[in-house]
């Protein structure tokens, strides 16, 4: 999958018109200068050589140098942008799962009007554009009530700190983790304050899928014989629902988590733009405006690897949860 995407991106970005070198300069630029830059980026070499060079670099973890700006290597740029995205998607995912599963179980258990409300919520929230929800939250909590900041990751006055063991810096770039490891409580509080609105906006939008899946699975599971048997043995309703039924209802939900991750990344691009977070999404949008092939390619490769790893983890998790899959 990674190879297919990579090759397609490479070919499509190269074959089509639009020269990154020319985009750097005016149309009237000195041809010698243009040639020099073209040569420096290796764009004057045959396409297949560029391709194999790129693959060779990739095997060594080298994503090439950026074609716009100061020719910085792409890899470190992506690494420096990734923590913001990771932090946002992680907390959004927690919000989505918590809201989705709780409301889904609630609807399936109650039936009737509460269930209809849950169903409507699932449909409505799925149709919500994440940036619009983000704006509404910003307006209410950031501008009208002035409770929470509307953008960025930290207030300008707060300096991020991180843990250093001996002389080895343990800088993750994940501010909630860094601040806790280094014992910087004000930074932790500030980070959380900045995270609440974007994570809730993205998490709620993603929760729609979880609500629907949990609700339908739970309804089917609650009708299953083993649930009736558990009830007949006089187990508490809470035990029946949460220990017996939910565990079985969750199985199909685990399998869609991998696909949810792609949805989460798409949403993260819009959320990062809306909340001015310097993550991978805003990086991608910035770079595309410069026709920075290597940066776009690098980001796509990075995301492809990430998604493959997530689906692998999901498969392992599934095997752990469902004994029938174990060998």
């Amino acid at each position: 999958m990674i190879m297919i995407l990579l090759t397609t991106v490479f070919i499509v970005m190269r074959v089509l018109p639009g020269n990154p070198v020319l985009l750097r300069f005016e149309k009237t630029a000195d041809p010698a200068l243009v040639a020099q830059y073209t040569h420096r980026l290796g764009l004057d070499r045959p396409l297949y050589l560029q391709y194999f060079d790129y693959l060779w670099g990739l095997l060594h973890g080298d994503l090439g140098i950026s074609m716009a700006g100061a020719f910085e290597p792409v890899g470190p740029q992506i690494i420096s942008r990734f923590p913001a995205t990771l932090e946002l998607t992680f907390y959004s995912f927690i919000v989505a799962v918590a809201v989705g599963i709780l409301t889904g179980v609630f609807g399936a258990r109650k039936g009737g009007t509460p269930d209809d409300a849950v169903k409507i919520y699932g449909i409505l929230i799925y149709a919500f554009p994440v940036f619009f929800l983000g704006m509404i939250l910003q307006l209410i909590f950031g501008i009208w009530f002035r409770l929470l900041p509307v953008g960025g990751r930290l207030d300008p006055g707060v300096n991020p700190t991180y843990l250093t063991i001996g002389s080895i810096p343990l800088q993750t770039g994940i501010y909630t983790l860094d601040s806790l490891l280094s014992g910087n409580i004000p930074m932790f509080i500030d980070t959380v304050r900045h995270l609440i609105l974007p994570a809730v906006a993205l998490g709620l939008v993603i929760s729609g899928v979880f609500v629907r899946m949990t609700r339908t699975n739970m309804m089917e599971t609650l009708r299953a014989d083993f649930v009736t048997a558990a009830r007949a043995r006089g187990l508490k309703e809470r035990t029946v629902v949460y220990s017996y039924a939910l565990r079985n209802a969750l199985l199909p939900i685990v399998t869609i988590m991998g696909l949810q991750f792609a949805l989460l990344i798409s949403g993260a691009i819009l959320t990062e733009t809306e909340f001015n977070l310097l993550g991978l999404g805003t990086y991608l949008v910035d770079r595309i405006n410069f026709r920075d092939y290597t940066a776009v390619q690098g980001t796509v490769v990075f995301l492809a690897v990430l998604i493959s790893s997530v689906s692998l983890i999901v498969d392992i998790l599934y095997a752990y949860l469902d004994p029938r899959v174990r060998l």
Partner: protein
Amino acid sequence: MKKGNSSQQSVSLMGRVLSPLLGKGSGRFLMLIGIGLTVFIAVMSATAPYLSPHDPTQIGLGPSNSPPNAQYPLGTDQYGRDLLSRTIWGGRFILLVAVVAVLICMAIGLPIGLISAYNGGNVDRAIALIMDSIYAFPSLVLAIMIISVFGVTIINEALAIAVVYIPSYFRVVRSQVLAVKEMPYVDAAKSVGAGGFSVLLKYIWPNVTSSVVVVATVNFADSILTTAGLDFIGLGLPVTLPDWGIDLTYGRQSLPVGAWWTIFFSGLMILLAALGFSLISEGYAERTNPKLR
């Protein structure tokens, strides 16, 4: 005789697609609301030139960031443009992109899914692998890439969205065909000499239609959201057009002064447009899949 047969078949096919509208149940209710919303937005967009009180692109028509009032019922944006006119006009291009995208998706995804699954073999497996790769990749990232490469035009935006959603059709059609093609009645048709094409069209396709309706309506909702997202990050339509997504980008700049009307109505329209199609899809799925009732 033959003619009568085929028209009877098409009637029953139409009937099959439309039957969920008849009878009772919450699914039908959802569908009717969805259809109502969709028709409302479609009619509003189609008749925008007659409905809108002002030119949606005229700068300095009213005061800057004026709240809703008698003269400008939905207020004005930071450039003094009339937001009611912009809201009425704003769906035309989003919906156009969505319609074109869905048509392209269907035109490509359905035949590939049908033929690939019916023939099976390595080609089918290879296509399925490619489609799964696209499917698992964040749709917005793909759409952004395609647009940035081909340039920002309405057709390219539709193409980008089409490419992103082709796998949804392919996957649904393929799984249905795989389930149906081993059925005894298909074997029976083959054994009395029906060719591959007529087996596909007469015996397999009718089993796929109701899933296609569900996928297409979900696809419409997703296309609307993706188009609006692309417009919002500035990689969609030209910013000079009146458009809900672009209005949100403009309105965002007026948020710090609390001008909620600059984002609220265009955002609401995107929501309603996507919601209309989601409701149709949800209701239809509920009506055709008794398990969900």
